[in-house]
């Protein structure tokens, strides 16, 4: 792993010097800002059961849908398309180092983007001046959830990118995988009706795979370690598959 930090630093440096990074971050914050503003509007019109911050985290999956594919689609596919993967893989580095550096670079960018949205809550609490509204735990829980689930979603994106040389295909595959995980995962319980008497383990499996439910837990301040396990293990599995894919296609060991 001696080249991991060299690679990661280079990836981050490339993000820093690329104007696209800042434009994407600006637009992302603009969109999320509109969301937050709409939620506040709604909150001001009719009294709601939960604080605007909690409502904000209910919509977490909307930015994930477009953000994850955009962040990860170019990681391996672009290197492959431009041919730089060839110069990269003919130096004494391993596929593991390449995949992990790509993953962590996009993960750091992802975390940074979400971190900036934290300012919305700060602004809200400063101007609301209502101690009843102030409840930091759902916010911590929500951001922790975004950080933990990000590992899985970005690993899906990296995996999609490691399969192809076309960024477009990588983006579409990443979107489909993320969509499948979020939408199908949260609807698995409805699918168990095909089994007449679902055994207990099926029910618990379905419950654990429900990423929406995990978000509900986290954003109400309940930190559930089962979610860590779900996201951590799935992220590791997909990163491992990406490493295998890169080794298979680029012949490196």
């Amino acid at each position, binding site marked *: 792993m001696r080249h991991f930090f060299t690679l990661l630093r280079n990836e981050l440096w490339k993000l820093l010097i690329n104007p696209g990074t800042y434009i994407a971050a600006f637009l992302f914050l603009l969109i999320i800002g509109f969301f937050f503003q709409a939620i506040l509007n709604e909150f001001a019109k009719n009294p709601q059961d939960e604080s605007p911050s909690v409502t904000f985290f209910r919509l977490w999956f909307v930015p994930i849908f477009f953000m994850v594919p955009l962040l990860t689609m170019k990681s391996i596919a672009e290197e492959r398309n431009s041919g730089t993967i060839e110069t990269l*893989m*003919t130096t004494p580095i391993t596929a593991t180092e390449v995949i992990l550096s790509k993953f962590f670079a996009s993960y750091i960018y992802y975390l940074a983007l979400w971190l900036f949205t934290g300012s919305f809550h700060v602004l809200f609490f400063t101007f609301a001046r209502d101690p009843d509204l102030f409840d930091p735990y759902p916010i911590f829980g929500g951001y922790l959830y975004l950080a933990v689930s990000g590992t899985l979603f970005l690993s899906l994106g990296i995996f999609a990118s490691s399969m192809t040389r076309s960024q477009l295909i990588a983006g579409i595959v990443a979107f489909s995988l993320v969509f499948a995980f979020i939408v199908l995962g949260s609807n698995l319980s409805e699918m168990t009706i095909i089994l007449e008497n679902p055994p207990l383990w099926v029910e618990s499996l379905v419950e654990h795979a429900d990423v929406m439910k995990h978000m509900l837990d986290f954003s109400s301040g309940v930190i559930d370690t089962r979610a860590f396990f779900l996201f951590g293990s799935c992220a590791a599995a997909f990163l491992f598959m990406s490493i295998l894919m890169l080794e298979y296609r680029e012949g490196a*060991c």
Partner: protein
Amino acid sequence: MESPEYTIEVENLHKRYGKLQAVNGISFKVAKGEIVGFLGPNGAGKSTTMRILTGYSQATSGIARICGVAVACHPHEIKRRIGYMPENNPLPQELRVKEYLKWRAKLKEIPAKERKRRIEQVLQRCDLERAQNRIIGKLSKGFRQRVGIADAILANPEVIIMDEPTIGLDPHQVILIRDLISRLRGKMSVIISSHILPEIEMSCDQIIIINHGKIVGKGTPGELRQTFINFTTYELEMNGKPTDLSEALKQVAPDMKIENIAEPDDKGFSNVEIRIKGKRDYGEILFDRLANNPSLRVRSFKRKEAPLEEVFLAATRRSWETVESDLAQESPENSDTPKEVESEEERPVKVVG
């Protein structure tokens, strides 16, 4: 583990992409410090062979060794010993030249103390000092090509593999790169592929011609001419009637013919090419006859070396024409015993006039 004699050894290498046999039983050896040129039409298997040597793609069967280390068994080990510049020279567009080389130096495990010196050295060697702070994506093709070469020689590897390094360069830069490659002679083994034949001839000790994934010719330029060129050409500048010349030629040898005759210049002298089948030396007698012929005035006379283009065309044509079985017999003979070809009949090139 070290093999002192050969830095690159390839034995019976095969690579198959589905039904397509890209490399079909290639064997060759490159001695330490030797510069080898790969020639072949597009799609002949040059790039595939180079990629296998770098460990980037895997051979279907056969053995490739770099410094005695098998590529397939220790891909990591050999990657420390090679400098590779792929086809089309891919580079990250957004980095600056020096930045890129610094990063590559780290990846290539150059010790931190030496890194700066090594980078300055390659920048100077490749004449990149003026461009070191420019963004790669905004450089002209010649500069980018030199950045690729700088990267390949950066870590002072034992083996350098460059796929078409001089493509897209202007003549000045080509000379620079040729000098650069020549300076590596004796220190590193270099394999380059190119379409520019005179380029290869000038800088390479050994030429390997590949067609259809097979080696169709191998040896020094002289050896290749011996093998593939079955005629002798003389070039002369002469003032006189072509009919008189053909008469004179017939007296020397009946099958000697005028191949080509150019328009006479203002003094009435024209360039004439005379060709005779087989490798026969008629230089002295021909010169004598022409000089003593009263109706012909000869200003210069010399034996003309067949250009490498002719060798290349002859070698690749032969492999197109010959049937598969014929090739199977022929290629090991050509590829494994180049020394024999050399000793077949060594004829010194004679320059008279």
